[in-house]
């Protein structure tokens, strides 16, 4: 406790003495809230403290949602200097609540965009320090034992072969998965995108609550295929797990970010860390086997091992679509809730319907029947049906703003959507089974 008082007192003293003298060498405690694992934070801590003797990096590990909540709850007496996490939308939330401090990094060699995504926030509130793309990760041993083909595209995961073999984190729980879902929706359009997602979802083994739950299950071989952010797979490969990874063509690379918290107690230290992480030295840390993220400084790739993906050069990244952050921001809650109510909490119904469709199609492949084919198409449409169109999605968000605005209550909407899904999945299952009987 004494230690803590001393450190805090020192930090306070520093703000008074140092004031705005940003040129002065950073010292004292720099407190950072992050969702990154120890494997990521430890090397940075070590390198940063070596580069700035006198400064210590104090890491508070929280998952992204809890970190945002924490910063919000403690704003009155803020003790945190930096926020460091993957999902850009978490930073959008912080920015929206005016919890971030603008800053202009001095680091050079960083392009404006990665893929088609701007690396830094246009208002200078947060900065990309590494890039990540979304894709499909699978366990080779599992795939061999279950005779799974290598997946390449999202649509591949909808094939009957993958039934009950795929895992995903709930987008409401994982910022990165949310971006994956949003990427598919933006890349394929609302209706087509949801159709793809639901066809995949019909093959889901489960929907996990933590982002890391998916790579963990794939690594240990409990699940064959996972929809994950690339570095999970790279880090697993670095740890010798028998896993592979592929970027589908509809995806995007987005930056992982760092931002300075408004009223940071050690602003000089915070700025020093931002500069460090964007510097060539800091960028090189990203190449460590336990971290394996894509640097934003193009020069760093010269030092990368062979086969390291380079989003600034590799052709597959060049055709990746543009990600509209604003569009994502306006409908985050609606998309996530739709996913939860139609997929996460209806998984049994959805899977049963999908299985019935697969069986009917298998039967049809042996013995065709036009009426049955029509029934299967109806069933597929029922599964893909959405309770609201894209235009309505933005309007529905009022239900998710809690007590601030009057309107439909979240629970009411959820119940409507869940009932919508449940009913249609049951109908789809009935139709598919009818089709299977006709085809027999």
């Amino acid at each position, binding site marked *: *406790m004494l230690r*803590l*008082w001393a450190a*805090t007192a020192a930090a*306070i003293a520093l703000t008074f003495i140092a004031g705005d003298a940003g040129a002065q060498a950073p010292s004292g405690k720099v407190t950072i809230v992050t969702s990154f*694992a*120890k*494997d990521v934070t430890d090397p940075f801590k070590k390198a940063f403290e070596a580069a700035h003797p006198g400064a210590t990096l*104090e890491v*508070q*590990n*929280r998952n992204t949602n*809890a970190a945002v909540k*924490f910063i919000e*709850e*403690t704003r*009155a*007496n803020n*003790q945190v200097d930096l926020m460091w996490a993957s999902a850009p939308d978490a930073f959008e939330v912080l920015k929206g609540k005016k919890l971030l401090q603008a800053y202009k990094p001095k680091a050079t060699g960083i392009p404006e965009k990665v893929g088609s995504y701007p690396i830094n926030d246009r208002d200078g509130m947060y900065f990309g320090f590494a890039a990540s793309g979304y894709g499909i990760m699978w*366990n080779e041993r*599992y795939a061999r034992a279950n005779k799974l083909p290598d997946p390449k595209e999202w649509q591949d995961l909808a094939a009957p072969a993958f039934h009950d073999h795929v895992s995903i984190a*709930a987008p*409401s729980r994982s910022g990165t998965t949310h971006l994956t879902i949003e990427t598919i929706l933006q890349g394929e359009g609302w209706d087509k995108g949801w159709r793809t997602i639901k066809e995949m979802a019909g093959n889901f083994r489960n*929907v*996990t*609550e*933590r982002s*890391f*739950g998916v*790579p*963990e299950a794939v*690594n*240990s*071989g*409990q699940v064959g295929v996972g929809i994950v952010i690339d570095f*999970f797979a790279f*880090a697993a490969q*670095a*740890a010798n797990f*028998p896993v592979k990874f592929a970027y589908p063509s509809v995806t995007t690379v987005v930056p992982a970010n760092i931002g300075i918290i408004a009223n940071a107690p050690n602003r000089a230290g915070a700025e020093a860390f931002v500069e460090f992480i964007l510097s060539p030295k800091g960028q090189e840390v990203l190449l460590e*086997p*336990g971290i394996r993220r894509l640097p934003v400084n193009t020069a760093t790739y010269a030092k990368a091992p062979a086969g390291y993906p380079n989003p600034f050069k590799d052709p597959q990244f060049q055709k990746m679509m543009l990600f509209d952050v604003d569009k994502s921001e306006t409908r*985050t809650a609606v998309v*996530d809730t739709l996913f939860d*109510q139609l997929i996460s*909490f209806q998984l049994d119904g959805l899977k049963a319907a999908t299985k019935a469709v697969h069986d009917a199609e298998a039967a049809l492949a042996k013995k065709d029947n036009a009426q049955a084919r029509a029934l299967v198409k109806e069933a597929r449409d029922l599964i893909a049906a959405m309770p609201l169109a894209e235009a309505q999605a933005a309007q529905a968000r009022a239900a*998710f*703003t*809690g*007590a601030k*605005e*009057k*309107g439909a*209550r*979240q*629970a*009411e909407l959820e*119940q409507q959507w*869940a*009932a919508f899904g449940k009913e249609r999945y049951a109908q789809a299952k009935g139709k598919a089974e009818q089709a299977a009987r006709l085809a027999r």
Partner: protein
Amino acid sequence: MTAIALTLRRYSAGATPGQIGLALAIALFLAVFLVVPVATVIYVAFTEKGTGAFTLVNFQDFFATDLFVRSFWNSIYVSLMSVAWASAIALPLAYLTSRFEFRGSAIIQTLGFLPLIMPPFVGAVAMTLLFGRNGTLNLLLDDWLGFKIPFMEGLNGVIFVEALHYFPFILINLSAALANIDRAMEEAAQNLGCSGMRLFRRIVFPLAMPGYVAGASLVFVKVFDDLATPLLLNAKDLLAPQAYLRVTSIGIADPMGYVISVVLIAGSIAAVWLSNLALRGKDYATVQRGGGGLSRRTLKPWESAAAYAVITLILLLVLAPHLGLLILSLATVWSFSPLPDAYTLAHYARVFGDSSLYIKNTLIYAALAGTIDVIVGTAIAYLVLRTKLIGRQWLDWTAMAALAIPGVVLGIGYLRTFYGVSLPDGTPLATLWIMIVIALAIRRLPYALRACHAALQQISVSVEEAAENLGATKARTVRRVVVPLMTGGILAGFVTSFSTAAVELSATLMLVQSNSDAPLAYGLYVFMQSAAGRGPGAALGVIAVLFVALCAYASHRLVERSEKKQGAVR
């Protein structure tokens, strides 16, 4: 608060000023560290969207939503089944070790206690590796016999893991109760022609009922409110995960998450209240506490072999997570195979430097929390069972309600309540590590409270009256007679609070402000978030389990020795 105080004063006939003061102090403690912080979070449940006015419409929504209704019944089903399975595991262990002369009873009891101190994350991870769809057992079964057993599928998985995790609550309480039964009770039944299982069912078990019910209600409430296990096993159609998911994501501004929390709290209080009701009016105090517990029979060789076989089987099952964890901590890569590809000690080397700090912090936090818990627990048990203060039951219920408060709600409540309070040097109160201790103490108070309550319930009032008759004041009677007689129960409470606090995560996660203040569970969580961290995380988990188990065992031995000394004097 004031209302309680007034009520107490008005209806305190027969109570000493000391007792009233004690009741007020405890009420204040609970109010400041439990009621107020939680109220700042869950009052939203009763407000109308948009206006903030008081309403119950949200509860109407709760019961109109299929998902919540389904979750509600699933939660009750899972809790009841977990109690049933936990009983099936705990009964033979408690019965065999307390009824028969057994080598290594203390070790068996300690091992039987281990599941409680399984740190979060790693337990379910290890169980999945062993019993999951592609776990060791199912891969082998599939290879040899061509089928798999769905241990871990859906609600079954939750019941399986929860029963293994929480059965020690029943074991501990039941063992303590069995040890307190006067031997003549059993002999009288034998004398009248009763023996074996019938004797257990008709006499021994009913007499041990207060202990069993205390344990079973803990298991029920604990499972009812647990969110870590269902979440890790991807069973989300349960109340606690629903509340947690909403509170920590898009539902954060929506009342429904808090409505579920209120339902959870109400359900837990109802369970405790029902268990109290079931035991009301049953005077199970056995007068001669010094008369020694049930007679221990020496087993014939074949009986002994059978008993050891049963115990070994149960222990293997309940210690499976620990075994899995140990293997994981030594494994290089363990993926889709019955056992790891190769073994290494590197993970231990990796965590060696960090672990001493974590262990030191854990020891301080958990020991302080455990101490606070047994003090407050004993005090509440005493007030409830031995005084006539009006409203004393509320202390009990309030403390028990802590069971049902999701850790994250308590964490947010603490931040809201105490972050604005600054120390003279400007540090917010909530950033002090002592707040972690208090949060842990509040979270684990129900365990200690139930143990102390059961212990005190079994002590005959006449023992105290004798002391008072010989000139001891109430306070001195408590100190010199009641507390020493309760030692066993108090210790059980301390060990439970200590051990489970040592591996507690959810409230800690919100309140840990710096790595140097972090306890073991937090360090473990940080490790377990990456592929390369799995081994080191497991290594840290093994260290945590060993360390907490050693502490628990040592304190067990210590008290056993002092009890023996007492026994010699009697």
